[in-house]
C-alpha cells in the first residue's frame, strides 16, 4: 500500500468562544484563546491520499490535482482570514478549534473529491493540522 502526503500552509486567526457557555466559563475554559479580538497561527495542513499505484505513471495521484483542490476549497478561503468572521461554517455556533477546522476541511475536500479525481481509485486517508509546533490534530477518514 502506498500513501502520498502533501503539506500545505496557511495563516489565519480565530477566537475560541462557545455560545453555549457564559463569558466567565468561556474565559476559564479557553484561557488566552478567548481574548475578544482573536489571535492567529501559521497552520500546517497535511493531506494523505491512498490508492492503487498506477503501473505506467508510477503515481498514486496527480499531485497537481490535489494542489488545485486544496487551493480552491481550503487555502483560498482560509489563508489570511479570521475564521470567526470570514469562513461561513464558523459564522454561527461552531467554534473554530483545530478539531472543528479539521472536520470542515474533511467536509470540503470530500464534497469536491470526485471533481479532482473523477474516475480513479484515490481515497482521502487522513488529514493532520498543526496549529503550533507543539500541537497537532489528526483525523483519519475511512
Amino acid at each position, binding site marked *: *500500500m*502506498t*500513501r*502520498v*502526503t*502533501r*503539506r*500545505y500552509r496557511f495563516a489565519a486567526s480565530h477566537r475560541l468562544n462557545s455560545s453555549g457557555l457564559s463569558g466567565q466559563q468561556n474565559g476559564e475554559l479557553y484561557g488566552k484563546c478567548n481574548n475578544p479580538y482573536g489571535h492567529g497561527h501559521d497552520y500546517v495542513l497535511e493531506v494523505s491520499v491512498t490508492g492503487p*499505484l498506477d503501473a*505506467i*505513471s*508510477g*503515481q*498514486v495521484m*496527480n*499531485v*497537481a490535482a490535489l494542489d488545485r483542490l486544496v487551493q480552491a476549497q481550503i487555502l483560498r478561503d482560509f489563508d489570511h482570514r479570521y475564521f470567526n468572521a470570514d469562513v461561513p461554517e464558523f459564522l454561527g455556533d461552531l467554534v473554530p478549534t483545530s478539531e472543528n477546522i479539521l472536520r470542515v476541511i474533511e467536509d470540503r475536500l470530500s464534497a469536491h473529491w470526485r471533481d479532482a479525481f473523477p474516475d480513479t481509485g484515490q481515497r482521502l486517508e487522513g488529514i493532520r493540522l498543526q496549529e503550533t509546533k507543539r500541537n497537532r490534530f489528526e483525523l483519519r477518514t475511512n
Partner: protein
Amino acid sequence: MLITRRAEFSASHVCAQSSLTAEQNRELYGAAANPSGHGHNYILEVTLEGDPDPVTGMIFDLKMLKEVIQKNVIEPMDHRFLNYEVPPFDKIVPTAENVAAEIWKRLEPKLKGERARLKNVRLFETEDLYVDYVGASL
C-alpha cells in the same frame, strides 16, 4: 514497539514515459518531466516493528540498521541520476512512489530479524511531499 532511522541522499531524476509525447509527459508530471532532469535532497525514514530483546533491550541493532541502509540505498543512490544509474529506473519512472517501493524491496529481506520486521518506508521528496510504503500485501 517501533524504531525509526533517518537517512539522506541527494539524487536527480526525470519523470517521463518513453511511450508518451513530450507534451503528454509535461501534462502528467509538470516540471518533473523536464528532459535533462532535476534533483532532490531525499530524506528516508525506515521504521521497524518488534519487541525488545529482554537481554539487550533492543529491537534491532541500530548500527546494523544504519549499515543496511547505507549499503543498499545510500551508496547506490546518493549523487546519482536515478534514470541512468540505478535500475530499475531505466525501465520504470522514478516517482517518489516507485523509489519508496524499490527501497522497501531492497531493505525488507535484510531486516528480517528474530524480533523485528520492516514496518514502513517513508520517503520525503521535498519537505512538503512524502510517500509511505508498507509493502505490497497491505
